[in-house]
């Protein structure tokens, strides 16, 4: 009789890395559609360009590291990183911005630390932070969403021309505007109800367009939860702590208000972070209780930096700060070993 020499586990699901990564990319689709609708084709062009850059960088590093090229390119992890950065970039970000961000994420944040599975920091968040602190002007020039008074959503060709100005600077008439999060933060002495006017960047619950983008990512995230790709602990803890913080420090709609809880939940990259960025299994805490702490930390940090910090949104910073804490959390929050009761914990030394 021929016995296969394989070690446990003997049951295999078909959730290998590439399958998981493909589903993650697929799940960004509702949010992507909302982004394209409200901000134009530039989002899609950015995304595709980010994919090209990511595959190029991945191939380059894998080649230098003398590893099998096909194996690494087929795991789709570089594409996930590129997708997250591409979705977070302003719609008409110049092509070199994507190259710097994605290149930094793949080469330095991922491969210099040992490649997929060994990176302590979320590559997408690192790439985004590098861009944000190096090129603040380019990174904050968002277009007003479709539906805001005076907004011009550029068509496909115009977007292409302004992202890749191959033949000199082709003038494309667009107006850039601060994002709703920024506008709510920078309102000298005004009350929230004074800036929340019809035709302004503010819509029903949050920014015009942004609320639908966030709902889109929420739908994608629920799909990932349903397919058991991600654990529920991180998004629930993150959104819960953000909700709690924004309830406690709400301050109404006067001049001291910091925005309603719903505004914070549906603004900026909240949902993208909760389901797609913070849930990265490599850089998050490893146990269930640890994930709760990790997620809650991100939520609190997002609110603190948004309201009292210098940046309008804080998703990437919060994720990186909690990436720092993940090993510490794992050290103090160790799950009970199977077969041991809770009381064994104190008596048994280090056996």
């Amino acid at each position: 009789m021929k016995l296969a020499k394989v070690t446990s586990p003997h049951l295999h699901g078909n959730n290998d890395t590439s399958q998981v990564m493909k589903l993650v990319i697929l799940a960004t689709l509702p949010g992507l559609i909302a982004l394209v609708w409200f901000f134009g084709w530039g989002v899609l062009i950015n995304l595709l360009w980010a994919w090209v850059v990511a595959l190029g960088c991945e191939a380059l590093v894998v080649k230098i590291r003398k590893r099998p090229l096909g194996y690494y390119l087929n795991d789709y992890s570089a594409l996930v990183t590129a997708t997250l950065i591409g979705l977070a970039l302003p719609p008409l970000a110049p092509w070199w911005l994507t190259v710097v961000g994605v290149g930094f994420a793949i080469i330095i944040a991922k491969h210099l630390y040992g490649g997929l599975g060994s990176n302590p920091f979320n590559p997408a968040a690192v790439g985004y932070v590098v861009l944000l602190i190096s090129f603040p002007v380019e990174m904050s020039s968002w277009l007003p969403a479709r539906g805001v008074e005076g907004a011009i959503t550029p068509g496909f060709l115009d977007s292409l021309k302004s992202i890749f100005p191959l033949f000199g600077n082709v003038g494309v008439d667009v107006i850039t505007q601060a994002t709703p999060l920024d506008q709510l933060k920078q309102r000298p002495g005004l009350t929230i109800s004074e800036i929340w006017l019809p035709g302004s960047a503010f819509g029903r619950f949050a920014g015009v367009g942004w609320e639908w983008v966030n709902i889109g990512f929420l739908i994608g995230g629920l799909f990932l939860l349903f397919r058991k790709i991600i654990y529920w602990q991180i998004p629930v803890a993150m959104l819960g702590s953000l909700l709690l913080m924004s309830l406690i420090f709400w301050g109404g709609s006067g001049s001291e208000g910091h925005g309603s809880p719903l505004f914070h939940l549906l603004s900026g990259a909240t949902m993208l972070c909760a389901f797609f960025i913070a849930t990265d299994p490599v850089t998050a805490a490893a146990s269930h209780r640890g994930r709760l702490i990790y997620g809650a930390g991100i939520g609190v940090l997002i609110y603190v930096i948004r309201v009292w910090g210098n940046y309008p949104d804080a998703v990437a910073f919060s994720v990186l700060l909690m990436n720092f804490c993940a090993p510490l959390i794992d050290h103090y929050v160790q799950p009970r070993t199977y077969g041991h009761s809770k009381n064994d914990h104190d008596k048994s030394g280090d056996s």
Partner: protein
Amino acid sequence: MATSVESGKIEGDSEAVELLDVADTPSVDYKQISSDGLWTKNAALAQLLGLCPLLAVSGSVVNALGLGLATMLVLTSSNLVVSLIRHQANETIRLPVFVMIIAALTTCVELLMQAFAYELYQILGIFIPLIVTNCIILGRADAFASKNPPLVAALDGFMMGAGFALVLVALGMIREALGLGTLFANMDLLLPFAGNWEITVIHDYSGFLLAILPPGAFIGLGLLIALKNNIDDNRAQRKAAREDAPIAGSKRVRVTGNIS
């Protein structure tokens, strides 16, 4: 970097040169001291000493060169002085004595910079007085200068300082080129005749702020250390390959007959 690479190569294929010095040291290998300071035991790349000033002021070439020269000057002279009094300063009092010597020399350098490069002195700020606390200087004083004759100690200080300064300048060049798109900008702060040395590496450059900020220093230094390790590995491999080459002909040991 170029010079340090070359000096490293010299070390690889040269025999130890023995030179007789003063009576208390039978042999001093000047080449060994030089290659240790510049490459093998480079303060910044191998010993990782003095990282605080290295990371903090390497934002541009002129800052890096200014601090590098100041450190080199203090290191050379402190090694010389420490070596001169090495028989008088015994075990119990040696550390306070060394620190006072270094502090006095640092004050001299500080006053010199105030006199001749005042703007650079203001830019470098606290990092000039902080040369006192640079671990390379006390380290070399204790580990080398207090056990060796004056000239040898001074050479060691000079070479260690030069190795440190070269890394500082290399890091400064990387960060300035990446961060601002220029090289040797404002060199007249240090050298009055170097006002027109500025090279624009990239025209219409919008600046890459990260390279100027602290993370840029860490990443740049990490890459430089990786480069050094890579070069060393390659050299060791080539050396091993040369030595392992099988000797042609018979491998039997001849035990009988007349061996000429």
